[in-house]
């Protein structure tokens, strides 16, 4: 069974990109725009084991604290070292330099469960925008 290519999305406006058994996670452009200027990101620790959909950190903007719900489960193998000094990177490059963390996925085949395709996520965002 082929691994999913491209990005998958959660209803909580996170994205994940799976390459082999490594999943990179971030928040979407819609999320960073809604949040406004991000001033602090609280990430899980390297080595921490995450359960899919669990609340595992926060993204704080000037005006609000927003929980991070991990779209994938697994062991955290890397967190973005740039975000401590430059949390605004998440605003500037939500899909690139502003990635949040990477996990080793225990079961790559089940990553897509409960997540949205790009088209379905676009539809969700279009519904929510007014």
């Amino acid at each position: 069974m082929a691994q999913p290519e491209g990005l998958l999305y959660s209803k909580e406006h996170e994205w994940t990109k799976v390459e082999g058994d490594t999943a990179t996670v971030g928040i979407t452009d819609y999320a960073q725009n809604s949040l406004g200027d991000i001033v602090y990101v609280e990430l899980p620790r390297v080595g921490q084991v995450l359960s899919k959909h669990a609340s595992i950190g926060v993204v704080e903007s000037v005006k609000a604290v927003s929980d991070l719900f991990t779209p994938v489960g697994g062991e955290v193998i890397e967190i973005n070292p740039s975000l401590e000094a430059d949390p605004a990177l998440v605003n500037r490059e939500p899909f690139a330099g502003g990635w949040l963390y990477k996990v080793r996925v225990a079961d790559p085949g089940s990553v897509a469960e409960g997540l949205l395709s790009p088209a379905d996520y676009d539809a969700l965002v279009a519904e929510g925008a007014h």
Partner: protein
Amino acid sequence: MQTTPTLRRTALYAEHLALGARMVPFAGFEMPVQYAGILKEHDAVRERAGLFDLSHMAQFELWGEGAAAWADTLTVNAVATMKPFQARYNLFCNESGGTLDDVLFYRLPDRLLLVCNAANADKMWQWLTAHAVPEVGLISHHGSRALIALQGPRAAEILAPFADIDVAALKYYFCAEAAVDGVAAVIARTGYTGEDGYELFVSGEEAPALWRRLLDAGRPLGLEPAGLGARDMLRLEAGMPLYGFELGEDLSPLAGGQRWAVKLDKPEFVGKAALAAQAAADDFSRIAGFVMDGRVPARTGYPVFLDGRRVGEVRSASFSPSYGGRNIGTALVEKAAAAEGGVLGVEVRGAVHGAHVVPLPFYKRPK
């Protein structure tokens, strides 16, 4: 069944939409919280200039020769000693010394202009009318008159071509009756950002065209529209209280850091006895400024500790570009915890993070 009242709109509502503002409910009005972004707008005000719509605030007028003396019976600071065209910060209290509102008075030749917080508009109008005397006329212009604030080091330069008076020569905390872009206005050199700037009182009908003309003329000089989000960050950095956070019916002017505005030698005013007693005992919890030691921001309501004992809570808090990118805030704490330099703990999501008490303001504009 409950119906939600619809939000009111200021005269500049369409302008905000046209500028792509993110609108939010605030004090019963639909107001712009941001346009390009809070940090961008904050920086515009500190470095160049920002334009704010404050038309949701309550504008009241007090008419009659006895108006100032009457106002003195309801406020803590002196009104009758205000010079012609002077502006002065003041507070209304209830009999217990709790703050009903913090306000600005502007002494015009034939009337006192009183600007109250939008959130307190109805409460203050009821308080004023309940204490009314026949010799003092009260008029409310809430919702019909507009208020545009132009704030920042370039404010004078941007406003100058529009005004028929020398705005640079207008003294700080003074005002003038003048024309702005041909439109009758009260121009005041006041503001809530810690920068130089002006507040322009004009009719609601004439406000949209004035707003557009100021923006068009000011853009080349770096003028940006700025919303309530930036306004809150700027005023906190400047050490200015916000009603509901540093002042309230449970937070007297003394507790809220405004002791300087309380003239206990005034013959009589509502709340005087309570405030005098509070001042004498000096054992009340009070507002203290603090800075977080690390990168985790504080938020309203977070518990505050001194030596492991809970002593209060965070009231206002923000990331502060003008305070070195640190996280600042105010906390309502027991007297012992308010001492400058004191080490505090702020509980953030179950973990206690270090902070230090620092004097207000966090930011003062360069001379």
